[in-house]
C-alpha cells in the first residue's frame, strides 16, 4: 500500500487528460449543433428585431421602433391576453389530470397498468395537427360527432367553433388530452421515488390515503410538479398548431395566439423585423416564468 502512493502522484496527469478531453469531445457535437441551430438563429433574430427586415433583400436598423410599435399594437395585446388565458386554463387542467392518473396507476390495487400507461401516453406521440383533426371530428360545429349526438338526442347544435370561448375550451381540452400522458410519466417516476417507509409510517399513525397524498406525496414530488408546470407553461405560451388545425385562430381572430400573430406578421406579411421583436418579448416572458419557477423551486428545496 505504501508503495502505491508515489504511483498515484505520477498517474494523475494521464487521468486528468482522459477525464477532461473525453467529455469535451462528447459534448462538442451537441455544442456545435446547439450553436448552429439555436444560438445563431436567436442572435440573428435579436438583430432583426431592431431592423425593418422583410425577409427579402437589404434592411435598415430602426432602433427600438419595432418594440415601440409592438407595445402600441392592440392586436398584439389581444393575442397576448388570449395566450395567457389559454395557458392559465391548460396548465392546471393538465396538472390535475396527469397527477390524478399517475396516482391511480401507481396504486397497488391498479390493474392493467402497462396497458393504461400506453393508452394515456399515445396521444402525446401524435402530431398536434393530427390531434386537431381528431378533435375537429368530435367538436366540429357542423358535422362533429358530439353535435350529431346532441341533435339525435333532441338538443340543439352547440357552437363549438363559432363561439370564441367554447372554441378556446375545446382547444384546452384537446391539448390536455394530448399532453397528459407526458406529465403523467413524469409524475409516475416521481411518485415511485417516494420511499414506501413514509407511507407505512403514516399508515401506522392512522393517516388515510387523502392525508398521505397531501402530506407525503405532494411535498415529495414538488420538484417534479414545478418542472411539469414550467414545461406546460412554456408549451402553452408557444401553442399554435393545435389552434391552426382546430379553429384557425377563430372565430374571426378571437383565438389568435401570440405565436400565430408572430407567424402571420413575420411570414405572411413579411415583417420579419417586427415579428422578431414580438418573438423576443415572448422569450422574455418565458424567461421570467422560468426564473420565478427556479426561485420557488429553490425555496421549496430549502425547506
Amino acid at each position, binding site marked *: 500500500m505504501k508503495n502505491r502512493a508515489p504511483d498515484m502522484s505520477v498517474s*494523475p496527469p494521464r487521468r486528468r487528460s482522459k477525464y477532461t478531453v473525453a467529455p469535451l469531445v462528447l459534448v462538442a457535437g451537441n455544442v456545435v449543433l446547439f450553436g448552429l441551430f439555436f*444560438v445563431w438563429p436567436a442572435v440573428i433574430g435579436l438583430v432583426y428585431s431592431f431592423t425593418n427586415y422583410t425577409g427579402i433583400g437589404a434592411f435598415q436598423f430602426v432602433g427600438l421602433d419595432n418594440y415601440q410599435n409592438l407595445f402600441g399594437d392592440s392586436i398584439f395585446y389581444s393575442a397576448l391576453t388570449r395566450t395567457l388565458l389559454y395557458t392559465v386554463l391548460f396548465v392546471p387542467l393538465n396538472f390535475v389530470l396527469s397527477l390524478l392518473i399517475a396516482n391511480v396507476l401507481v396504486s397497488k390495487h391498479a390493474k392493467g397498468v402497462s396497458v393504461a400507461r400506453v393508452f394515456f401516453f399515445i396521444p402525446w406521440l401524435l402530431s398536434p395537427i393530427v390531434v386537431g383533426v381528431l378533435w375537429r371530428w368530435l367538436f366540429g360545429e357542423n358535422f362533429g360527432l358530439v353535435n350529431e349526438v346532441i341533435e339525435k338526442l333532441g338538443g340543439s347544435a352547440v357552437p363549438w367553433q363559432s363561439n370564441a370561448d367554447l372554441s378556446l375550451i375545446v382547444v384546452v381540452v384537446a391539448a390536455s388530452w394530448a399532453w397528459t400522458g407526458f406529465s403523467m410519466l413524469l409524475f409516475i417516476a416521481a411518485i415511485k421515488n417516494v420511499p414506501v417507509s413514509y407511507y407505512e409510517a403514516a399508515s401506522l399513525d392512522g393517516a388515510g390515503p387523502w392525508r398521505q397524498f397531501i402530506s407525503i406525496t405532494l411535498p415529495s414530488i414538488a420538484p417534479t410538479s414545478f418542472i411539469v408546470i414550467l414545461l406546460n407553461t412554456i408549451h402553452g*405560451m408557444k401553442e399554435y398548431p393545435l389552434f391552426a388545425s382546430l379553429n384557425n385562430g377563430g372565430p374571426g381572430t378571437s383565438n389568435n395566439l401570440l405565436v400565430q400573430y408572430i407567424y402571420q406578421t413575420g411570414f405572411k406579411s413579411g415583417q420579419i423585423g417586427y415579428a422578431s421583436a414580438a418573438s423576443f418579448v415572448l*422569450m422574455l416572458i418565458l*424567461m421570467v416564468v*422560468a426564473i420565478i419557477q427556479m426561485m420557488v423551486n429553490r425555496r421549496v*428545496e430549502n425547506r
Partner: protein
Amino acid sequence: MTNVGARRSRRLGRGGIRRLVPLAAVATAGALLLSACGSDSGSGGTSKSLTFWISTVPGQDAGWKKMVAQYKKEAGVDVKLVNVPYDGYDAKLRSAAQANSLPDVASVPKIDPIWANKLIDLGSIANNKSNKINGNFVAKDSSGKVLAIPSDVTASGMFINKSLFEKAGVDYPTSPDKTWTWTEFIKAADEVREKTNAKYSLTFDQSPSRLRAMVYEMGGKYVQADDSGKFSVDAATKKAVNTFVGWNDDKTMPKSVWTSGADPSAMFQSGDVVAYWSGVWQVAAYAESITKFEWASVPTPAQPVQASDVNSGGMTVGFNNNGDAAAAAEKFLSWLYEPAHYQALCEASGFLPVESGLNPKYPFKSEAAQAAFKLYNESIPLYDPVSGYFNTAQTSWALKGKTLTEDPTKVELGKAINGQQSADKALENIVAGYNQQLGGGS
C-alpha cells in the same frame, strides 16, 4: 479531487439539473421561435434531369405524372415532379429564390417579383401559332418577354347536390344562356334545404377569389385601383359583401367556414348541404369521391353580370438556373405545349385548355364531371371582362415589384361574420391592406 467531484454531483442531484432544465427549455423555446423554415428543394438540373414543382389537389396531378413519364420515354430526360402543399407554396418559392435553389420548371399561382427576373423567355412557345395559346392569359413584361404560360384556365363555379334538388322537386338551370340570379339561387337552395332537412343551403370557399366572382356577378368590381394606383370599392361591391356576410346565419351558410376554417368541401361531400360555391378544379376530385349522392355543376349566377373569377389554373414557368438546365427546361415546356401533348395533359388532369382548337376527351366515367366540363367550356367565353381583372393585375403588380403577400379578405370578413366589425369596416380594412401592399402607382 474526489471531494470536489462529490460536491458537484450532489449539487446537481439536489436540483442543479432541475435548475438547468428551465433555462435550456427557455433558450430552446426562444430559438425555435426564431428559426426560419429550411428549404429541402433540389434543383438546378442538367439537360438530362429537371426539377418540376407543382401544387395541386389529388386527381389533378395525374396529367403531370403522365407527361413527365412520357417525356422520359421520348426524350430520355428525367423530370422530377415535386407536389408542394398550396399553403406555403409562395413562401417556399421565395425561400428557394433566396437560397439560389429554384426548381427548373414550376407551375406557379402567380408571378412573384422576387424571382421574376430569373424566368426564361417562353416567347417561342407562346407565339408559336400552331400551339394556338390564348394570349389574354399569357404573362408578359413590358418588353414583350413571355414570363409564364397558363397550364389551364380555372373559374369559380357552383356545385349542387342534384339528389336534394330532385327530392325537393326544385328546378335549376342547366345552360349558361338561361342562368339564374343569386337571389333566385338562394331562394331555390333555401327551399331545397327546408324540404329535405338538409343542414345548410350553401357552403362557400373561404377564398377571396370566390368572393370576387360573386361580387362581379352582382355588378361590383371588388377592390380595384384607379389611375393613381389608389384602391377603392364601389357601391355594388359594398352591397354584395353585406349580402354575403348576411348569408352567414348558420342556416343559409355555416359561420364556421369563414370564421374558423371549417372545410366547406367536406361539408358538401357529406351530402347534407344543398350547394357549394367553389371552382372547376373540384370536378376531377368529385368525379371519384362523391358516390353517396348525385351532384352537378350549374351555371354561375348573373345578377345582372354573367361573370366569374377566371384565372390561370397554374402558370408554367422556367427558371434560368444554369445554361444547360434552362435550355432543357425550355425544351421540355416546348414539348409540353405541342397541341397533342397539351391535350393529353388536359385530359388526364381535367384541365380546361388555354389552347384553342382542342377537343379534350376527359377520362371521367362520371357523367356529372363530363357535363361540368362541357358547361364550363361553354360558360367561360360568355363571362364579362371583369372576370379576368385580378389575373392580369397580379402580373402587372409583380412586374412593378409589388405583390399581394396576404389578401386581407379572409381575415377581415371572418371578423365581420363573427360580429367583431361591420361588413363596411371589413371592406375599409381590406382596401387599406391593398393600398399598403400594392398602392401608389400600380
